[in-house]
Each structure stands twice: as C-alpha cells, then as structure tokens.
C-alpha cells in the first residue's frame, strides 16, 4: 500500500475527514440557510463518518501504528509527539466513527421536525472530531484541547431541543458539571507540569525522577487528572451529569455520548496513564500505586450504576445508569495495570468498550424509536411493543442480553475475557479478586433490569390501546445494523480481541 509515501500528517486523516465534513455542512448551511433537506445533511454526515471509518480501517490493514518489528509501518508521531497514531488510536477511532455513522442515520428520522438541522449535524461532526483527536492526543495540552473540542458541541447537542425544558435543563447541568470538572482537570495538568516540567506524555515519564521533591504535588495532580477522566467517562463521583444529560438529550445524542464519548474518555485515560505514569516509576515518586484509585473507582462505579439502574422506572434513565455501570467495568482495565498480565486486562477492557459501542448505541436508538413513536418513557409504556414491532424488539432483546452478558452474544465474550484476565491478574494483585467478584455480582444484578425491559416488550400485555406504529427507515436501519454488529461481533471476536490486545501491549510496551 502507498501509505508510506504520504506525508506524515495524513496519519490524522480520520479526524481531518470529520472536520472536513463539519465544514462541508457549514458550507451547505451558508449556501442555503435553514435548509431542511434532511437527506442531504444526514447523508453527508453519514458519508463523512463512513469515510473516516474507511480510512481508519485502511490504516489498520496497511499496518499504520503496528510496530515495525511486527512488519507494520510503525507508530506515527506528529508535531513533536503532540499527537500519536498507533493501534489504540485507530481502534478507538473505529468505535467513534461507527457510532457516529449510526447516530447520523438514526437522526434522519428522529430530528425530522427540528428547525436547526445543519447545526445539529455539524455539531455532531465537531464532537466526533474532538473524540478522534482524543484518541490521538499525546500531550496533556492536546488532551485537554481535544477533550474540550468534544465536550463543547456535546453541551449544545444535549440542549438542542430548545423548546423542551428537560433538554435545556440537562444541557445546563451538563455544562456546569463539565466546567467544574474541566477546572479540576486543568488544575491537575498544571500540577503535573509544575512537578515534572513537561506536558508531552513521554517527556513526563522521563522526568518523573526529577519530581521526587514534589511527590505530594504530583500525586494530587494525578488524582485531579483522574477526576477529569472520570467526568468524561461518567464514573463516580463525576457521574452526576450523566443520568440527567442522557435523559434530557435527544436519544441519538444520548447514544452518541454514552458510547463514543465514553470510549474517547477511556482512550485518553489509557494513554495518559500508560505513557506518562508508568506504575513503578510513579509509585516511587508519589508513594502509592495509582491503580488503587482505579480499583476503588471501578468497584464503586459499577456497583452504584447497577444498583441505581435496578430501581428505575424510566427506560432511558435505566440505560443511563447502566452506562455508568459499564464505565465501571471498563475502569478495571486501568485498575489491573500494576499486576502481571495488566496489558491483557486493559486489552479486555478495550474489547468491552468496542462491543459496548454497538450494543449501547443500539439500546439508546431503540429508545429513540420509542420516543419517535411517542409511546411513553416508562417500562409499562413499552409493554407489548413486540406485537407491533417485532423486528425492532428482537434487536432490543439482542442489545439487552448482550449488555447483561448472556452467551453467545458479543457482550458475554468481552465480559468473560475481562473476568478471566482480571482473575489472572489477581495472582499479583489481590485487590483484583475483589474487582472480579464485584464484576460478577453486578453482572448478575444487571440481568434483572435488562431482562425486565425484554419482558415488558415481549411478554407483558399493552396497558392501553396504541395506534399503529410507523417504521422510520433511518432509525430501523441504524437499529438493525447495530444489532447485526452486536451479533457479528461474536464470530469476528478473534480479530477484535487480537487488535485490542496488540493495541494494549503496544501502548504499555
């Protein structure tokens, strides 16, 4: 392939495609302001996202980011190491671009009566750009900028239903919590910079020795960085925005935030902690193993998310809490890093995020479909939907059982591998046993509320008469594709697992 002959900066092509699409949407809007040509807008967005996906997959196949020792083209470093394109970058860019495409297609129907069409799509594209940039960011500065680039359009997207009180309120809360968290994050960056004198991640790692005198300072800085990541991934105690924002936002945006944005939050957390703060060197300076913080956060997050989800009556809110629970599962990837086999645990967490991207997007898109139909928000309102919409409800069953981790669906395999790797890591880090136990208990509990939804749509009788349900093409297509991807993730699991494990190994390497 001809990748080598291209200039280095083209390695950022996926992000560039996103930004180009966003600009293209602005151009369309300036030529024809207030256009409501939904096919053109949603189509452009979807094509842009798929183009980004295509480029990413092409890079992966061509060997960009694969170490030269393994026959690849090597990791690409740009702008003096401010950005890096390796396997982990491409892996997460894949997740982001697929979710973006699904959301764009689903929005075609969901946002049909909306006034600000082109703004909506361009904001999605800009947020996606931020997420793609997060996957590649390799310096605390670029990390912060990418994070804000993803966050700011998100606030607007959550609040985009301007006539809807819930949407506006959610947007404001999201923004306020986001501002607080960004402040903490930025303060953390300044402390790290103060202790080590560097912002570029490898440089921080190289200069940890020099920070001996500022151990406490560095530790506080790291903890504040954790706060920033916890906000982006909706982990405890920075999760408060999530149920409100997901519930108030348009459902496709909830899907987008809870899947793509969360995955992007994890990629920067993975990169910063594996690259800038190698466990042993950092422990020597700050006096404590930072994985301890993640052990606590993982257990608390998954427990809180699942317990709160169990008692919800509102489907969208239940999914919001379940998404917090899944953040807890993914945090195990960082909690296990100090143990032998930590890279396997992190690989497993990446796999889980990958599969989660499809099944969670699908679940929220089903909610989008239900909102489109106007059937209501609670479990009771969903009763008996399967009689009128069997295809969509079959897909919902796949999403729910996959989220709960029932074999043979993709969610089972990722959770199973995560569990076995966690047990494997427990040999050198006893705390991982507790984490593994929490994982199992919470998964068992999660089956309760996931199957409750399946039972509602398939088994219960409708509580009242309902009109015939429309079959919006875009939403249906997005749901079916997500379901197919969730199922196909099973036979394709080998390559996904390999990709995730390799990416994790290289990142830690």
């Amino acid at each position, binding site marked *: 392939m001809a990748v080598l002959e291209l200039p280095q900066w083209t390695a950022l092509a996926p992000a560039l495609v996103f930004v180009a699409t966003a600009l293209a949407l602005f151009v369309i809007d300036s030529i024809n302001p207030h256009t409501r040509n939904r096919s053109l807008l949603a189509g452009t967005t979807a094509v842009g996202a798929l183009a980004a996906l295509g480029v990413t997959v092409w890079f992966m196949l061509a060997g960009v980011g694969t170490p030269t020792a393994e026959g690849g083209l090597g990791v690409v470093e740009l702008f003096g190491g401010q950005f890096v394109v390796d396997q982990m970058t491409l892996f997460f860019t894949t997740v982001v671009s697929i979710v973006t495409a699904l959301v764009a297609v689903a929005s075609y129907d969901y946002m049909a009566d909306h006034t600000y069409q082109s703004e909506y799509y361009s904001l999605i594209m800009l947020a996606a750009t931020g997420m793609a940039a997060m996957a590649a960011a390799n310096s605390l500065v670029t990390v912060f900028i990418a994070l804000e680039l993803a966050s700011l359009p998100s606030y607007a997207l959550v609040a985009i239903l301007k006539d809807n009180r819930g949407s506006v309120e959610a947007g*404001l*809360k999201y923004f*306020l*919590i986001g501002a*607080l*968290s960004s402040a*903490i994050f930025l303060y953390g960056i300044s402390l790290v910079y103060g202790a080590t004198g560097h912002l570029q991640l490898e440089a921080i790692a190289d200069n940890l020795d020099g920070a001996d005198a500022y*151990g*406490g300072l560095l*530790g*506080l800085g790291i*903890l504040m960085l954790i*706060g920033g990541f916890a906000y982006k991934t909706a982990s*405890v*105690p*920075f999760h*408060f*925005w999530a*149920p*409100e924002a997901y519930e108030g936002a348009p459902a496709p945006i909830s899907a987008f935030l809870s899947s793509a944005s969360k995955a992007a939050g994890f990629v920067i957390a993975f990169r910063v902690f594996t690259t800038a703060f190698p466990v042993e060197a950092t422990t020597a300076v*700050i*006096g*404590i193993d930072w994985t*301890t*913080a993640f052990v*606590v*956060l993982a257990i608390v997050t998954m427990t*809180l998310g699942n*317990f*709160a*989800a*169990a*008692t*919800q009556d509102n489907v969208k809110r239940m999914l919001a809490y379940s998404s917090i629970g899944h953040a807890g599962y993914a945090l195990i990837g960082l909690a296990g890093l100090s143990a032998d086999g930590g890279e396997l645990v992190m690989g497993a967490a990446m796999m889980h995020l990958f599969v989660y991207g499809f099944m969670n997007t699908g679940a929220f898109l089903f909610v989008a479909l239900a909102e489109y139909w106007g059937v209501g928000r609670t479990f009771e309102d969903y009763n008996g939907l399967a009689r009128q919409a069997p295809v969509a409800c079959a897909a919902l069953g796949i999403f729910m059982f996959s989220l709960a981790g029932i074999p043979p669906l993709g969610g089972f395999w990722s959770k199973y591998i995560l569990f076995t790797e966690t047990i494997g890591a427990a040999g050198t880090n006893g705390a991982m046993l507790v984490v593994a136990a929490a994982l199992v208990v919470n998964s068992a*509990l999660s089956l*309760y509320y996931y199957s409750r939804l399946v039972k509602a749509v398939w088994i219960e009788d409708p509580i009242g008469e309902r009109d015939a349900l429309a079959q919006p093409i875009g939403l249906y297509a997005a749901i079916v594709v997500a379901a197919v991807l969730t199922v196909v993730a099973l036979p394709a699991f080998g390559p996904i697992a390999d990709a995730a494990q390799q990416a994790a190994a290289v990142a830690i390497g």
Partner: protein
Amino acid sequence: MEGLFDYAPAIALFPLAAFVIALAFGPKLPKKGAIPGIVATGGSLLLSLAMLAAVAGGEEGYYHETLFTWAAGDAAGEIGTDAIEFTFGILIDPLAALMLVIVSLVAFLVHVFSLEYMNAEGETGLPRYYAGLGLFTFSMLAFVYADNLLMAFMFFELVGLCSFLLIGFWFRTRSAPSAAKKAFLVTRFGDYFFLIGVVAIAATFGTVQFAGEDSFVAAAAAAIDDGGQLFGFDAETWVTITGLLVLGGVIGKSAQFPLHTWLPDAMEGPTTVSALIHAATMVAAGVYLVARMFGYYALSPTALAIIAFVGGFTALFAATMGVVKDDIKQVLAYSTISQYGYMMLGLGVGGYVAGVFHLMNHAFFKALLFLGSGAVIVLMHHEQDMWKMGGLKDKAPVTYYTFLAGALALAGIVPFSGFWSKDEILYDALIVGLEQPLIMAAYAMGLIAVFFTGFYTFRMVFLTFHGEPRTETAEDPHSVGWAIKAPLLVLGVLATVAGLANLAPVAKLTGAEISFLEYWLDGEYGGLEALTYHSYHETVPFEEGAIGSETTTMLLGAGLSLGLALAGAFTAHALYNVPSPTRHTEKLGGAYDVLRSNYYQDEYQVWLAEGLTLPVARAADRFDQTVIDGAVDGVSSVSLFGGDRVKRIQSGIVTNYAALLVAGFIALLIVLGFLGGWFL
C-alpha cells in the same frame, strides 16, 4: 476389502433414515413405515456382513477412524496428560463386527415379524412404532461401533430413551406408561454411576478411547505398572473404583441384581419390542460394554470377582422366580435376567470368549422365544396366561418346533447352541473357582440355576403346547402367516446350529481346530492386538486349577450341567406334561409367596423411594424454599433498597451535584494522600 470400511457409518445411518421417514411420512405409507424399516435394517445387515468379511479378509483386520471432533481442549489428566479430545469415531474389530451382525439381523427379523404382529392386528400409532424401532436400532448400532466411552455413553442413553418410548407404546393403558417410567428411572439410576465413571476415567487418563496407543485401557495398564497413586488411591484400586462406576450402568441396562426390577415390567411393551430389547439391544448393551472394555476390567481382580459373583447370583436368583410365573412373557423375562447373569459370570471369570459366545447364542434363541411367544399370543387372540393354553402343538407345528428349538437351547440341552456356550461359561468359572472360593460360590449358584432353567423352560413348553386345550381359543387358534413363520424358521435354525461356532469341548477332546469363535475373537482372522482374547487372558489375574486333568474337569463340568438341565426338564415333564396339568405351587408353601412376590424386590425399592428418598427430597425442597430462596430474595430486597437510596442522591439540583462531586473527590484525595504520605 479395506475400502468397504468407508461405508461403516451407513450401518447405523440406514435405520436413522428409516426413523426419519417413518416419523415424517409414516401415516401416508402403505405399511405405515414398515417397508423403510425392513429395507434399512436389511441394508444394515448386508453391510454388517460385509464388515465381518472385511475384518476377516482385510490386511489390517480392523477399522478405527475418528470422524468428528466436537470438543478438544487443554485439561490436565491425573496421569500427566495435558489435553483431551471428545470425538465421534468408529471402531470395528472382530467383536464389534460380530455384534453388528447380531443386532442388525435381529432388528431385521423383528421388523419382518411386526408386519403381521402389529400391522395385521390393526394396531394404531404404527408410524410411531416403526420410528421407535428405527431409532432404537440406530442407537444400538452406533453404540456397538463407538470407539470411545463417551460416545458409547451417549448412545447408551439413547438406547434407554428408545426403550422408554417403545415399552410405553400403548400409552393409553395404565400399566404401560408406568412400566416405561420404571424402566427409564431404574436404568437411569445405574447410568448415573456410569456417567460419573466416564468423567472419572476422562479426568484420570485424559482419554476415553477404547483402542489404540492412547486408549484409557493402555493408560491404566501403564499406570498400574508405574505403581503410582491416582487421586490418593493405588492405581489398581482406582481402576477398580472407576470400573465399578461404569459397571453401574451395565447392571442397570443388563438387569442384574439389584437393578433388575424394571425388566419384567417392561413386558408391557409389544412382544416384538421385548424381543428386540432382550436379544439384541437394551439388555445386551450392558454386557457388550463389559466385553468392549474388557481390557480395563481385566486389570482389576476385584472388579472381575464382583462381576462374576453378581452374575452368578443373578442367574440363580432370577431363575427361581421364573419357576412360578403364569404369564408366558414373564417366564421369558426372568429367563433373560438369568441368562445375562451367566454372561456376566463368564466375563467375570475371564471367559471373554465364553461370555461373547453366550451373548450371541442368547440373542438368537431369546429372539426366537420372544417371537415364538408373540406367535402364541397371536394364536391365542392376545391371551398370555399359560394356564389358558395347552395343546397348541398340533395346531401350529412351525411355531411349536421352532419354539422347542429355542427352549432346548435355553435349557442348555446338547447339542443345541445354548448348551455349548453355557457349558463353556461354567467350565471357565469352575477352573477359576478351584483356586478362588468366591468364584466357586458364583459357579455353584450358576450350576444350580441350570436345574431351574431346565424346569421353568419346559414347564412353559408343556403348559403352552402340550396336553389338552384348556380354553376355547386354544381349541380354535388364530392362524399365522409367513411374516411370523419366516423369522421363526431362520432363528430356529440359528438357535440349533449356532453352537457350531465354538465347539470347545469337542475341540479339546479330538484336537480338531474347530473353535472358530475363539480364533475370531483372538484376532486370527484380523483385529487389534490389544483387544484379543489371549491378550486379555494374559492380563486376567486369576489362577486356574483342574480336577485331575483338564479334560476330566471339562467332562465332569459338562456332565454335571447337562445332567442338571435334563433333571429340570424331566421334573417339568413329570409334573406338567399330562393331559390336564394342575398347579403344584401350593406344595412350595411359604416359599411360593416369596417367589411370587419376586423376593419383595419391588417392595423394598418402592420403600426406598417413598420412605427414604421422598423425605430427603422434601427436606431439600424445604431448604431450597426457605434458606436458598430466602437468601436470594434477601439479596434482591437489599439491592432494590440500596438502589432506591442511590436514586435519591440524584436530587436534580445541580449545586448538590457539585458538592457531592467535590466531596467524593476530597474523600478519595484524603485516602490516597494518607496512604501515599502526601501531607507530610
């Protein structure tokens, strides 16, 4: 010839196809599924004969092929293996080839017989019947050529399922479903131990193959030679334990004491089904399994002695019960239990050839007797009580003479087939018994049983066919057609001459080389070295003795058993071969009640179920309802309560969130800072 082996899977697949056809199209077919069944079993028979020829004439003389691996993985075996595979494969050696012929022949004849016994009698539900027969035959044939223990177990279970379906064929009566359930549950009880045995063998040796370098038999022999410990036991003790666990399944299926109680009840099924169950499939499966993995049992003298003793005891025990039965099929049922006891005795004393020989002969004469009794039942318009028969001899000569041949074989009268094999079993038991007191006791029981066998057999013959007709139906019996007569004639000839296969005593006396079955099982015509008679015989740890010379012992034994058989037959002749026989059972006094009640075996097993198992099950249920369910309900209440609390934190007021967020962050900071010493 070798290429023939490639068609081996078809032997079992033909009847499976017949099953599918009968199930799918049965109601529309002219004979409701009989024709496909006959064609399929006929095809299996021809192919089995071809296999027999291929084994005899081929260069390798056996066929061992893994067809399908359905699970493979890394698992450490106790003896140090590191991987295990579960496969479907085919093993056709002399033993399997012989058994394939027997099973497919009997199945074929039973299908033909059914044309008249079932179709002509206007039974309903025939497609179901033929589907059941097809599946039954398929399961048994696949079991016979299974090349590993797990596959054998699966088809063993399938055989059990089919017998359940067929015994309960007349499911609208009260007794048939109950008998079917009983057969299923009792054999399942034995199979439970079998399953544990399979798991134990797999876990110990990391293989479940019957034959070849990596068979569990070879691994067990090597382990015993090493003298190491397996699961905390001596290697030999462990082999005994696992062997006995597998034997649990054998005792259930082959109706050995104490799990024999299902078999007499199983007479509720159609007589053709009884013929198939008793001669070639279900009951034969147990003994065949012992023969199949004989190399394994040969390693353990304890297991062998237990097999021999259980066999000898069952032979006598069942024969005494057969003496007082009035129903013709009941007599045959107890004779089956008794005869399989002989086979177990033979195998248990290391008489591999004798056991297999009797398995073969028994298949022929018991199929003959059951089909003959089926013919009698047709003659008698579905009357089975022997006291209502009599004098059928002249009215149905073909039935009579073939039945008589079967009876002579069963009773062990020279020169009919049963004599030769039973004599060989008793001879093998005697020579081992001279050195081992326990085996001597087993031999003695087997010997006494010969007398009872002669007695009940001829009591049955005389009551049914001789004397004056005692009812109107016996005066004017229904006629029977070729579909009944032809199978009877074929089996009658076989029951008479099958003994020629292994005239061991004659061979010993004259020195002529005519013990063909022994050569066959010894691999002289082809076979696997490790699975041959002399290889087993070297392994079997029993000493052999003799009274005087070997020939004297043999003549003495043969004379004794023949004398006892004749004595039994003549006693029956004296008591029942009179124009109007009367019951003599009162003379037995209290013993009659005991025999009539089958030694209260059913009663104590029912008591075990109701008096012991039921209270335990109730207690377990109560435990489940209160403790387990209570704990589960408790967990869910706690979860929901906790979830409710968590939900309340989410108050909707953003300032609260900010406060909680910062509080959480500070809590984390204090903990980590304290642990990391940041505040110093």
